[in-house]
């Protein structure tokens, strides 16, 4: 995994000290809130409903054991014993005190972490496939490129005051687990006809109040040219992106208003001028970064492990967990194990200090100290020997971390919603808890199969409701919480934006409405169809009918 060099270390430490001074000046009254607000936001500090919130970056969702242990420690020392993993593979603390945040940032800096690029109109923390470097289906580990994007984008002087925030996601696999088509820039690794590996460049995707699936501006850009090409896109956006209206300032609006052909023309024109400059990365440099993410020292193992098979046969809980939470690894004898942060009836994405420390310990014991955060708000131990899976599950299960529900109806994405967020219009978490309880029976979840429910507590769509197979948007209707349902969204390589199915539902009605949709799907599905497949085959009408009848 990437380790800071002296430059990174100095940069983060100096930033921490700068912020300490800024906080001191704010508390002394030397600067006003108006002056301080942009400074705190550039350091990940928001003011939310009940208190300050500190959002810490987990670059491309990759953590070492010592880093996750520190995140647990920070939860205990500066917060109330827990943290919340977000849809951007970051972690948020909900109760830090302003005057203690500089100390928390120093503790983070000591484990090569920070809160930079978690707020403000800059290029935000880059996200990627949580199974990077482990997935059997990947072309190449995308993280070396993510790290290069991090270095290129951090404090980029030209792109610190963009029209609006800017999010880049990368997938190294044809099976997109990073939702790249709903990002400002999505990079999909693939090979061209000459057999070279590079990226399809997708621009202008996004969620929020105006959702779009991104459009391809270039089918293929070679690795050496990736950074100059990104720079060209950002320059076009920085120059032409709207600054007159916050809600029309994202690049998706520019792409929509100008058309992808015009954006393509502008980007290519800009790129022609800079492509042979300093941003062209040589093969040697790329090789150095690939080396930083070299696979761990895997043992040569058979892919068949008799003890693993025996435990599966003897222990139903374990076999259920393997069925949903364990997937194939590229290395024989190893597997990728997901740690669900969605216990039945629990709060999606929340983990206690003790749980974080436990997963850190388990990653040291079983996964080469490597942990991942997923945009679906779970954790992953990416490199576990099949022979160790039973011991791992046993320890996870004791800590309420062994829930066997990955990809099922109870593996719900939910933003913090009105319980924490100052922007929210309705609560998300209690609804996710009630849906989770309603469908908690595991046999029922198996019967339903893959079903992605995503809940946002406002139109900003942090809960990705637009790309939920079933999406739920919480609104305020004359002072009451009110939930609008969308159907047919998809965040994968077949990305689509869900359609609003009809009038919304009250808090009391909405779980029944979801259940009737699921029941309808079970009634009409063909063999082997997931909810999204059935929806695509039959369209909205049968589902509409079950919700509204003749209404």
């Amino acid at each position: 995994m990437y380790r800071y060099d002296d430059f990174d270390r100095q940069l983060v430490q100096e930033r921490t000290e700068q912020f300490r001074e800024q906080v001191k000046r704010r508390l002394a009254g030397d600067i006003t809130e108006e002056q301080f607000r942009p400074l705190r936001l550039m350091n990940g500090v928001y003011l939310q409903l009940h208190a300050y919130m500190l959002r810490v970056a987990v670059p491309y969702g990759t953590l070492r054991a010592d880093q996750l242990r520190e995140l647990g420690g920070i939860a205990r020392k500066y917060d109330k014993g827990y943290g919340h993993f977000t849809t951007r593979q970051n972690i948020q603390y909900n109760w830090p005190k302003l005057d203690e945040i500089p100390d928390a940032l120093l503790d983070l800096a000591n484990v090569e972490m920070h809160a930079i690029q978690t707020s403000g109109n800059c290029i935000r923390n880059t996200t990627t496939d949580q199974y990077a470097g482990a997935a059997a289906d990947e072309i190449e580990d995308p993280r070396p490129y993510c790290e290069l994007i991090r270095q290129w984008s951090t404090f980029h002087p030209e792109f610190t005051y963009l029209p609006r925030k800017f999010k880049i996601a990368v997938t190294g696999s044809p099976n997109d687990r990073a939702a790249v088509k709903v990002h400002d820039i999505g990079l999909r690794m693939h090979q061209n006809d000459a057999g070279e590996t590079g990226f399809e460049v997708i621009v202008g995707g996004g969620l929020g109040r105006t959702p779009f699936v991104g459009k391809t501006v270039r089918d293929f850009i070679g690795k050496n040219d990736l950074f100059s090409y990104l720079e060209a896109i950002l320059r076009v956006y920085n120059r032409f992106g709207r600054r007159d209206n916050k809600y029309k300032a994202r690049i998706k609006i520019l792409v929509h208003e100008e058309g992808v052909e015009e954006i393509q023309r502008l980007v290519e024109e800009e790129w022609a001028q800079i492509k042979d400059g300093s941003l062209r990365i040589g093969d040697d440099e790329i090789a150095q970064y690939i080396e930083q993410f070299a696979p761990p020292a895997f043992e040569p193992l058979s892919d068949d492990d008799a003890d693993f098979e025996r435990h599966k046969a003897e222990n139903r809980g374990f076999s259920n967990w393997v069925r949903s939470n364990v997937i194939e690894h590229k290395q024989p004898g190893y597997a990728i194990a997901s740690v669900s942060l969605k216990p039945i009836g629990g709060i999606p994405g929340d983990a206690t200090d003790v749980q974080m420390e436990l997963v850190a310990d388990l990653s040291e014991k079983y996964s080469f100290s490597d942990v991942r955060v997923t945009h679906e708000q779970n954790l992953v131990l990416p490199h576990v020997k099949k022979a160790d899976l039973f011991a791992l599950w046993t320890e996870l299960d004791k800590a309420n971390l062994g829930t066997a529900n990955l990809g099922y109806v109870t593996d719900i994405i939910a933003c913090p919603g009105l319980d924490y967020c100052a922007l929210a219009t309705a609560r998300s978490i209690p609804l996710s808890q009630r849906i989770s309880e309603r469908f908690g029976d595991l046999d029922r979840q198996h019967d339903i199969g893959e079903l992605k429910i995503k809940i946002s507590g406002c139109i900003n769509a942090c809960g990705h409701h637009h790309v939920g197979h079933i999406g739920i948007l919480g609104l305020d209707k004359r002072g009451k919480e009110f939930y609008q349902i969308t159907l047919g969204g998809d965040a994968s390589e077949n990305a689509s934006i869900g359609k609003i199915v009809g009038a919304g539902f009250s808090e009391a009605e909405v779980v029944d409405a979801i259940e009737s949709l699921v029941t309808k799907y079970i009634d009409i599905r063909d063999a082997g169809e997931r909810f999204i497949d059935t929806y695509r085959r039959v369209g909205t009408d049968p589902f509409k009918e079950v919700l509204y009848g003749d209404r």
Partner: protein
Amino acid sequence: MSLQVVTANRLDDGLVVFLTADGGWSENIHDSRVADGKEAAAVLLKEASAPELDVVIVGPYLIDVEQGDGGLVPTKYREVLRTKGPSVREDLGYQAV
């Protein structure tokens, strides 16, 4: 009759506070000074927005309240949550005390 109080977040710890009768800030909405009517509310907000309070609180604003059996209650659920804490963690926030 519309009753309003001023709320804000405290600068140092970010916690929710309410403007009190003596010009201080309390964590308890029941200690709030209540404005009855638009003019009184404007006076209250002006007081809470004094530049010298910029080192005490952040973002003061008026909220609608009603006089309930147990004291003042915000009319909007968002503000009810601010007086209590997250509905999903009753062990946290003012409700836990």
